[in-house]
């Protein structure tokens, strides 16, 4: 009698545990939460359904991905890139998600205002990284510690090691219980931004930018359209190099982009190279920084030889020049 009741209670407890997990951590649970919120006319606390597959890029969340407000005067070191990425990602978070970083800043005597300041922020963020470097030598674990706090980050790191995996930001975030989602997205954005700051340039630094990023009058279609990359004026046959190590995600040809290459550099960073005359790598191939990957050309919808270089962070096009140190003369002649 007692054994049967105890078994029943155990069954019940385990069922409740599973329902709790499913309710908070699966899209099916989110659907139930949304439906009940709709039925009771209350506000649902469930994340958007697609955010449950977010991995590390945070694209499904509304937090804005910020580009630096001030121009960079010199190329950044790795540590500076990380500090810039951290500063910009912190600016995009709400006050509650910034709490762990604020606590760490307070420990070091850094006012939060300074951390968010456009000029002093990166320097202050570098101090935070320096304070965490001893306990978290790897960049991704350090960013986790900075955005979610030391204790959760150490816990996540130990769990990843126990699982025998690499402590990437994604694997670390997977170990954290509910409540850390927004801060984790902040860490992912910081990593993507810092990776973008560390990218090389696909052609010679002296190549002229013939059409910048942003709204423009399209030279072929004659309508106003968003130009999602920068056009670099280079002669046909110019060597195009990989801006960072990565994997070839796409190597194809079509009537608009011509011969196009897309490289996935991980950490939510993707680059594309369009209108090439020749592609020198294949889909799935791993490339190293500076490796010759294509020769520029005039293929696809193009009115002259050039390279269309595109940078995407968390699948969103960004202006690559915002992440470059050297300031170039940019002509606005709308050449494609």
């Amino acid at each position, binding site marked *: 009698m007692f054994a049967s009741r105890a*078994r029943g209670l*155990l*069954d*019940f*407890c*385990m*069922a*409740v*545990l*599973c*329902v709790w*997990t*499913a*309710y908070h*951590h*699966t*899209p*099916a*649970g989110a659907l139930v939460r949304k439906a009940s919120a709709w039925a009771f006319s209350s506000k649902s606390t469930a994340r958007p*359904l*697609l955010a*449950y*597959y977010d*991995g590390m*890029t945070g*694209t*499904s969340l509304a937090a804005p991905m910020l580009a630096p407000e001030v121009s960079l005067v010199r190329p950044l070191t790795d540590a500076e890139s990380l500090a810039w990425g951290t500063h910009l990602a912190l600016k995009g978070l709400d006050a509650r998600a910034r709490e762990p970083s604020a606590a760490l800043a307070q420990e070091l005597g850094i006012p939060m205002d300074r951390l968010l300041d456009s000029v002093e922020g990166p320097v202050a963020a570098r101090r935070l990284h320096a304070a965490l470097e001893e306990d978290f030598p790897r960049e991704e674990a350090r960013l986790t510690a900075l955005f979610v706090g030391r*204790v*959760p980050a150490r*816990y996540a790191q130990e*769990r990843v090691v*126990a*699982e*025998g995996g690499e402590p990437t930001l994604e694997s670390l975030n997977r*170990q*954290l*219980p*509910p409540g850390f989602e927004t801060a984790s997205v902040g860490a992912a954005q910081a990593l993507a931004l810092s990776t973008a700051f560390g990218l090389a340039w696909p052609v010679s630094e002296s190549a002229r930018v013939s059409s910048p990023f942003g709204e423009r009058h399209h030279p072929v279609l004659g309508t106003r359209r968003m130009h*999602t990359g920068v056009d670099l004026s280079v002669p046909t046959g110019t060597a195009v190099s990989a801006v960072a190590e990565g994997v070839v*995600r*796409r190597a*194809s*040809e*079509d*009537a*608009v*982009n011509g011969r196009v290459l*897309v490289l996935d550099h991980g950490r939510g960073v*993707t680059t*594309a190279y369009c209108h090439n005359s020749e592609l020198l790598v294949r*889909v799935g191939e791993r490339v190293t920084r500076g490796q010759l990957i294509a020769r520029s050309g005039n293929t696809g*919808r193009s009115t002259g030889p050039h390279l269309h270089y595109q940078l*995407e962070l968390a*699948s*969103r*096009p960004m202006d690559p020049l915002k992440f470059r140190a050297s300031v170039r003369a940019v002509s606005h002649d709308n050449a494609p």
Partner: protein
Amino acid sequence: MPLGLLALVAVGVHAAADTLDDRLVALVDRADAAFDGLVGRYDVTAPMVEWVSLELRTRIARILALTWELAADLVLALPALGYREATTAAVKPAEAWRAALEGPKEKPSWRALWRRCLRQPTPMRWLRPLATAAVVVAGACTVAKLMQGTVYLSWRELMGDQISDWVARGMALGALVGVLATLGWRAVLRNLQHADAACAQARGGRQAFTRGLLGCAVVVPLALAAVLDATPLLSFLR
């Protein structure tokens, strides 16, 4: 209990689907490249090349992952609830709900089911229970992981680092074993019974062999992903 089974399957399926979205992005990329190559051949269709941006491709991949996950939930969780399609000839319409809730009257034992699996093997009889087992183990690992993280991080200030760590580890292991011992085997048995009944209803060996193939195609890749990427069983002992 049925709700617990449903939740366990849903958690396991999500743990598996979560590891597949990057592969789906690569698949969508390839499909889009092929589509662009096709429509780019003609001037009239060339503007269609710009339909799908990288952001949209990522979104499509996630929608595919979500659809896949919900489909797998349906395939694996409904039998776990005891649901079984009733034929209109056998059941009066007014009592269809009762049949749906109660399922078949006589439930064969593990031994009888195992014997039929060996003597009359079909993809459904083998793949559905095995897929359920894989998903259930992944689900139990997720529940245990969440239990460990929640207990450690919320009890640490109260009990100190060392004690809360041991308590969290113990509770995670307890949750893992408890979920598998109370719900896990039931989910597998339900699916095995459902597969057996569905195959037994088929007319002839060929129909039994092809029965439920679509469902198997939906759940087998997820089960593989669950086994390869979402079942860190030993991590709870380290």
